[in-house]
């Protein structure tokens, strides 16, 4: 997929400047930058959730999103939380649950799972959609270091196994490193992409 962005603003306030971004299957990118710089806005544009911008987005890749919060359906059990949004069958959903280490939790509702388990469920849901490119928005924030480390290793393994591409939005360069993602820095006002990490 390829994004040629001219500008994105909220009202009169410009958020993102001209930038171009291309990612394909198997390729991993990380968009780094401080909070409030427009990283999530950029990801929402890539995901097709925000269409109010100047520029163009091409590509017919299958996308899946892992949001900052798990964003699960609280009234459906773990299997249905994978099967309903992705349209996969229950057996596939169970298989993905097992792959993220949630075997035995199939019939549980989200609030019966810990935050770490909910995030793994959201990860399983994203992979069950068989994406060409996975979009992740700070998915390891608010996890303790140990859980975050395990989530990173799991994501890396699943990305390698499925061959999906990745666009990761994060403020932590170590996450990009752990996922072997090419770091791109979002900086400036309005924000633009820089290929190299700035050294302050």
């Amino acid at each position, binding site marked *: 997929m390829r994004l040629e962005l001219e500008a994105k603003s909220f009202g009169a306030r410009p958020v993102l400047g001209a930038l171009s971004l291309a990612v394909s299957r198997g390729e991993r990118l990380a968009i780094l930058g401080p909070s409030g710089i427009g990283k999530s806005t950029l990801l929402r544009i890539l995901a097709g959730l925000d269409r109010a911008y100047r520029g163009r987005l091409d590509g017919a890749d299958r996308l899946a*999103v892992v*949001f900052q919060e798990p964003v699960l*359906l609280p009234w459906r059990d773990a299997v*249905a939380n994978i099967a309903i949004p992705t349209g996969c069958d229950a057996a596939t959903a169970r298989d993905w649950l097992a792959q993220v280490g949630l075997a035995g939790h199939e019939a549980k509702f989200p609030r019966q799972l810990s935050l770490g388990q909910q995030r793994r469920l959201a990860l399983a849901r994203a992979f069950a959609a068989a994406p060409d490119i996975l979009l992740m928005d700070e998915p390891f924030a608010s996890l303790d270091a140990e859980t975050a480390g395990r989530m990173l290793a799991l994501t890396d393994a699943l990305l390698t196994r499925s061959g999906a591409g990745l666009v990761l939005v994060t403020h932590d360069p170590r996450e990009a490193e752990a996922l072997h993602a090419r770091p791109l820095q979002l900086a400036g006002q309005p924000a633009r992409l820089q290929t190299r990490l700035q050294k302050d």
Partner: protein
Amino acid sequence: MTGTPKPPSPRPGLVPGVLSLLAMLLLWTLASQLTDRPQTLPAPWDVAARIGRLAATGELWLNAGMTLFRVTASFALAMAAGMALGLWMGRWRGADQWLNPGLIILLNVPALVVIVLCYIWIGLNETAAILAVALNKIPVVTVMIREGTRALRPDLDDMARAFRMAPLARLRHVVLPQLAPHIAAAARAGISLIWKIVLVVEFLGRSNGVGFKIHLLFSSFDVTGVLAWALAFVAVMLAIDLFLLRPWEARANRWRQDAA
């Protein structure tokens, strides 16, 4: 050593509920015995005997059945139309701005005016009766569902869009579960309001049903009869609440419970 925590009773409030009913019954009995004119306030057993006779002749089932049919039909119509309008107005600001004045007017037109106009314009028939009741209820359902729709979670909306969920799947799995408490409240408030309006509609322009019977009994000042019909139908409505609405609500709210 601590004891095991007492498991919560499966029917909390059952005992106070029954006791409160018995107290009301006792009060009624006392009042009926103190009054010197039994026609004004008959004893509970007189009313019970009348209900028994009505049930035995089959009159009760025919008329209560007709009333129940009208309640069901207008309830279904009001809920369907109210939910569609409420969702539309809650989702699209334009629809809300255009339809809101009409909604406020409809909310404030007296039920009796709607009923009389429906009978005059459509005729003294079943369509007019059911439509008149539904029209009285639609604005109330619309307002309740609109408020619920405005409170829908935007993050779940994003998720559904990001995963390209089909519109029907989104409605069924994302929108309706969030609206369930509002739908239940609208249904609960609706069903009691509707059956009262159905009685007025029957009183004014139908030749069967509980309202029609009460019309006849009113002309002969037969309080026992009026109470018999009213209580019999209240029992029917309570049964619907207990055996249909409550189990549905319990099922819809299952996900709120923690693991056993």
